[in-house]
Each structure stands twice: as C-alpha cells, then as structure tokens.
C-alpha cells in the first residue's frame, strides 16, 4: 500500500542528503552470521533500511547429474524479494528484474569462489530481500558472501559493494531509496577489495566519462570501509555500526 509521492529535494542547503548523510557517507550497517539452523551457512546483512537474509547449501552432489560440470562447481543462485519487502506488494513469481539480478550476482560469486576445488558438485546460494530500500542487489551479494564464509567455502576474498549515484547532480555514496527513485544515476559496484578486483558493475541512468571516473573513486572509499566491517563480522559473527 503506497501513498502518493512527489519528487523531493535530494541535497539540502547544508549539502546534506534526505536522510541527513554527507554525500560520501555510508548508511548504518548490521551484519549477523549463522542465523539459520538448517543451512550450511547463513547471514543477515542490513544497510540502512535494506535487509537481506542469505543461505548457502553445499558443496554437494549435483542433481540432475548431466548438469554437473567436469572442471568446476555449478553455482545455483537465487535473488528473490519477499512480497512485503517493497512499497507495493510484489508478486512472488520471479520478475525479469529478479532473473537478471540472479545472473549478475551469480557471476560476481563465480569470480570469488574457488569453484575449481569442487568439480561435479553444486553450491546453492539463496537470498531473500526482507526490506528493499535501495541497494538490494549489493546487500544481497554481501549477505551471500557472508553466508559463504559462514559455510566455510573457500573464496579468493570477501565481496564488498556499494552504489554511487547522482543526487541533484552531486555524486553520492550508497544511494537511499529517494535518491534511487529521483536521482540521475545508479552505479552499483562490488569488489574483492584486497585483490582490487571488480566482480559486479552496472550503471543505470547517465554519467559523463569524467563523472564515471570520480564515481569509481568514491565507490572505492566506501567499499574499503564496508570491507573492514565484514572482516570484523567474520571474526565476531556479528557487527553493527550506525
């Protein structure tokens, strides 16, 4: 159920955003590992008002067998939104958007997991968006990364990601929902930070080549911050920063 909305001013006279953040400031983050009993690994990842739960099963034998690959693990990845995670109820059948993002997240995870260690096997990664408030693909990917770590699956590095966008023509880090809806661009990017490698990268909206370069720098800074929190969460199973 959604009340009518009008385009708000995204940057106020003090240079602050609709939620009071500075342009280069992240939203509060909360990470919890091992939240499910049955899954081999699981995590809840919150970033501002976006909340995602992820579960990992595997590595395990692939069924049906003819889908197995002789030289690496088959990843099966689902990004899904609960019907009550959005302003209007979302039909639970997978949308075209969810199908695209499941693919984009799978390809990001394939960059990170040492899939050559488990040929003929499969690893299942399931993400449910519980609250959607901008950044769901990245928060889902990070929840998956935490759940994989919780399951003890060998990875090249953890994955940290953040979106950079434009709010009233100002580059801003970690878009909120108003900026996502009314801003001029949304550039989600995720990396294996210690390897300096990009595993997910998209741009919706428009940027000049110069803005793109600045956006990448801004993203790098945010990713470094998130990465520290992720490492702490792995150690302590829980972290919260607001």
């Amino acid at each position, binding site marked *: *159920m959604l009340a*009518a909305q009008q385009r708000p001013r995204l940057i106020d006279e003090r240079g602050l955003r609709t939620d009071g953040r500075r342009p280069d400031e992240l939203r509060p983050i909360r990470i919890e590992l091992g939240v*499910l009993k*049955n899954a081999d690994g699981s995590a809840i990842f919150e970033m501002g*008002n976006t909340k995602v739960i992820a*579960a990992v099963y595997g590595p395990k034998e692939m069924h049906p067998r003819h889908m197995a690959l002789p030289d690496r693990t088959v990843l099966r990845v689902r990004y899904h939104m*609960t019907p*009550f995670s959005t302003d209007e109820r979302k039909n*639970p059948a997978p949308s075209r958007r969810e199908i695209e993002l499941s693919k984009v997240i799978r390809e990001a995870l394939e960059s990170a997991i040492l899939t050559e260690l488990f040929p003929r096997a499969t690893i299942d990664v399931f993400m449910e968006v519980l609250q*959607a408030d901008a950044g769901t693909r990245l928060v889902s990917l990070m929840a998956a990364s935490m759940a994989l770590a919780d399951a003890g699956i060998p990875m090249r590095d953890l994955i940290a990601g953040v979106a950079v966008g434009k709010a009233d023509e100002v580059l801003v880090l970690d878009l909120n929902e108003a900026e996502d809806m009314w801003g001029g661009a949304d550039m989600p990017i995720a990396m294996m930070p210690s390897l300096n490698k990009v595993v997910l990268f998209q741009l919706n909206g428009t940027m000049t080549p110069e803005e793109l370069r600045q956006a990448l720098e801004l993203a790098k800074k945010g990713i470094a911050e998130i990465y520290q929190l992720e490492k702490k969460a792995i150690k302590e199973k829980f972290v919260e920063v607001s």
Partner: protein
Amino acid sequence: MSATSDRLQTIVSNVKKASILKALERGVRLDNRKPDEYRPLSITLGYAKKADGSALVKLGDTMVLAGTKLEMDEPFPDTPNQGNLMVNVELLPLAYETFEPGPPDENAIELARVVDRSLRDSKAVDLSKLVIIPGKKVWSLWVDVYVLDFAGNVMDASTIAAVAAIYNTKLPKVEVNGEEVKVLTERTDVTPLAYPVVTLTAAKIGNFVVIDPNLEEESIADAKLSISYTPDMRIVGIQKSLGGAIKLEEIPQIEEVTRKAASRLFSELKNTFGIA
C-alpha cells in the same frame, strides 16, 4: 498430481527411530520435552519494516516470517461489506536442503489453505473493518508467510505468524470524497484482527502422541492432526496429514491434548501482545 516422495530424504535412520520410540516409552522426547510440551516460542512484531504488518516467529529451530500488504480493491459483488483476505505460504529454498525454488508445491498450498480456513471460518479477521466505501472500495489484505528455517511443525508456526502479522497491521487513514479515496501516510489504531486463533499439531508416532513435533519426529510420524482453536475454545479447523491412519477413538483423546495445549498457548500469547 500428488506423488509420494521422500523430500526430506529420510533424515532419521531406523536406529534413531528406535531411540525416539524408546524414549517415548519412558514419557520423554529426545529433545527432553514432555509429550505435550511446546518448544520455546518467540514473536517479534514489526520485523519487516516495509510490510504493513509483520511478525518473525521462532518455534524451537523453526523460523517463519509473515508480512502483510494492503491493496485497494473492489469488493466481490456478493460481499459488498467485506474486504478480501488472501493467504500465501512459501517454503523457501533457504529453509531446507532439498527445497527447490518455484511456485508453491502441494505442501505449501496445504499450509496456506489450512491457515486461511482457520482465519476465515473463525471470523478472527474482521473483514468488515477492511471496507472503505461499501460495495465500492475495500482493502485486500495479503498475508504472505515465508518459512525461513524448516525444523518441524511449520503448521503451528505459520498460523501464529499470520495472526501476529495481521495483529501488527494498522489500517492507514484515508480521505474519502465521493468515490475518490486518498490514502494518507498516517495510520489509524485499527487492526483487522478481532481475536487470535492458534493451530495445535499433534503427531502420532507408533502408539504415542506428541505435541509440536520437531523435524525428526515428523519424519517418522504415522500421522499428524492439526486442530485450530479460538480463545473460547471453539474448533475452527482440522487437518489430518501424512500417509498413516489414526484410530477413531483416538481423535477425541488427541483433541483433548491439543485443546489443553491451545489454552496454555493463548495464555502465553496474551503476555506477548496483549490480546486474547
């Protein structure tokens, strides 16, 4: 088409089965509960912030999240003074190793339909409160129950989660001008829940009956009986499940056990969210 399957992949071996039965002979269960003892229950209201109402329910290791959404709709022609209620249950692939993504299977559909009937037949949801303009505009109340961890007796947890999420739903304020309806961002204090209902599941294992079976117990049970109650102990739904039989005389006996458990559960719920 419904087909016999072993989707839990017989998680309990024959050895385990023997030890469960042996313990029951001594009046205890492997998780140290008494036969009529419920697992620890916790309810977190408002867990999903974008839902119009929500509740995270943990019953032992079982975890279920229910969320509601209100959508403006037209009423059905034959019920101009009622809103609509839709209940959906998803057994998420997160919840158990062999669960696959896809549309709800027969197990999820059965769960949804039992919860739906319990809510509907009991009149626990006051559908008249969902009317905005009689005969013209009503709220459709979507109740989505998402099973996150499948660890036994998802049935009872689903009913509790649905009831708690509906209780947590506060109808929005609206401005009505003729047939134009403007939805405001503020909420009223009105919940569509008239009173709670609970479902109590008993499992028959050999000659024994246990309440609130865990996953191991369910996987070796002959049959389950799920009985729903209102606070004044009217029965508002029964569902036998699993491919075994129950003696006719056992049904009143089991009903007495579930009724007592329902009574204890209502007391517990009273403390939790101030109704019943």
